[in-house]
């Protein structure tokens, strides 16, 4: 393991997120069965694997939307706190993007992006709106600020959701299958925004079924199966020379041929 860790981007620095033997059960079902991994500063780590293998659950344990039953999640050197009040402060530094966007339907796109800084950080509303407008322009939706989510396409909604998460100036962005609910023709616009974000050096944890995105953009891949990380490495290694039989069969099921 040592050699791979030092070979990673910013591997010599303390990780932004570290998972130590994370266990999560839903009733009698063990969804995460001792996952250990790290996410370094500025890395794009993609979580891949079959449905139900625990990828999304690990992501949701990162910002304590799910509380791990065993092991621990360490964020910027501190294990996740236990109380809701302390967790709020940690969550502010993590942006999250959901499969179903979860934009607030009663607010315009601009209000969606500005509501966090105004409500949570007590930002000046005029400044927060100006910043929200800049973020909407950054994701290519500068003209759509006045639209409600229902008047936007799926891809546009997801880009607003990314802007909303960025408005809190997070240290890490968590993406939970951000393109799985999209029409094929709008997937690209969302992936492009994510790719640009990665190029700017944002630390990103991405649960995805978009293998070509993982291949092109990720610095590190975690392959999940049955609640464990069965293989990890740089994309070239995972996609071109997977060592684990389950990885090979998973990739071939997706029609991945290098």
């Amino acid at each position: 393991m040592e050699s791979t860790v030092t070979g990673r981007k910013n591997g010599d620095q303390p990780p932004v997120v570290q998972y130590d033997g994370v266990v999560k059960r839903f009733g009698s079902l063990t969804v995460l069965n001792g996952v250990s991994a790290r996410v370094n500063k500025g890395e794009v780590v993609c979580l891949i694997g079959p449905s139900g293998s625990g990828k999304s659950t690990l992501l949701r344990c990162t910002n304590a939307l799910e509380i791990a039953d065993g092991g621990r999640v360490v964020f910027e050197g501190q294990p996740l706190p236990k109380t809701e009040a302390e967790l709020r402060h940690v969550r502010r530094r993590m942006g999250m993007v959901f499969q179903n966007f979860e934009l607030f339907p009663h607010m315009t796109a601009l209000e969606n992006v500005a509501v966090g800084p105004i409500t949570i950080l007590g930002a000046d509303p005029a400044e927060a709106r100006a910043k929200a407008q800049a973020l909407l322009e950054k994701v290519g939706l500068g003209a759509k600020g006045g639209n409600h989510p229902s008047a936007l396409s799926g891809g546009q909604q997801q880009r607003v959701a990314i802007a909303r998460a960025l408005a809190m100036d997070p240290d890490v962005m968590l993406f939970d299958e951000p393109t799985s609910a999209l029409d094929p023709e709008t997937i690209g616009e969302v992936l492009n925004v994510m790719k640009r974000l990665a190029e700017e050096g944002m630390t990103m944890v991405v649960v995805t079924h978009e293998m070509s995105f993982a291949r092109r953009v990720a610095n590190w891949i975690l392959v999940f199966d049955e609640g464990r990380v069965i293989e990890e490495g740089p994309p070239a290694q995972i996609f071109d020379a997977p060592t684990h039989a389950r990885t090979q069969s998973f990739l071939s099921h997706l029609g991945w041929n290098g």
Partner: protein
Amino acid sequence: MTLDWNVVWQYRGDLAYGVLLTIALTVATMAIAVPGGIAVMLMRQSHVRAVSFLGTVFVEFFRNVPLILLVYWAFYVLPILTDIQFSAFATGLVAMCLNVSAYNAETFRAGVNSIRKGQLEAAMAMGMSRSQAMRKVVLPQAIRRILPVLASTWVSLFKDTSLVSVIAVGELAHTALQIRSQTFRVLEMLTAMAAIYWLLGYPQAKLVDWIHRKYGVTE
């Protein structure tokens, strides 16, 4: 049998005052019972067992007691409990508020539960507290969704205010019944009363229909 409709015109001032009180009672009840309903709903949803129990008891009690009994009860019990002599209007208002708050609490609960979990999660993931998420994200959507139900409650409430006539609140029903017993113009006054309630209630019902069409279905 001769009908003398003149009596209605003769007492128009009293009737108009009765209408005013009926409207005032409806508005005041709703103005209190909407925040009241939200408060009781939040109590029911509380993670503190004792608080949620109190909320449940409130709803189940005041929803399942006949309103007219509640009106009488408030009339006799309130002065004993509080040692204050309430006016008839205030007493009626308390009774109506207890009943309608219980109904509204259930309406709000249904509304809040109909907002999918992901919305709350998105708010929490940004770093909002539970109460911020409730105020900014869940309640505004829930209220919009239950607006048709609240409007229906309003129309029922408007008519139900007539029940406080039993403790001599001088609203429309009480006024009309008083005039009836003074003039013995039973048929005229009851007909006039029905006509006035209908004339006031019908546009409200139409408004409710309109609200149903505008806000009834979302997503």
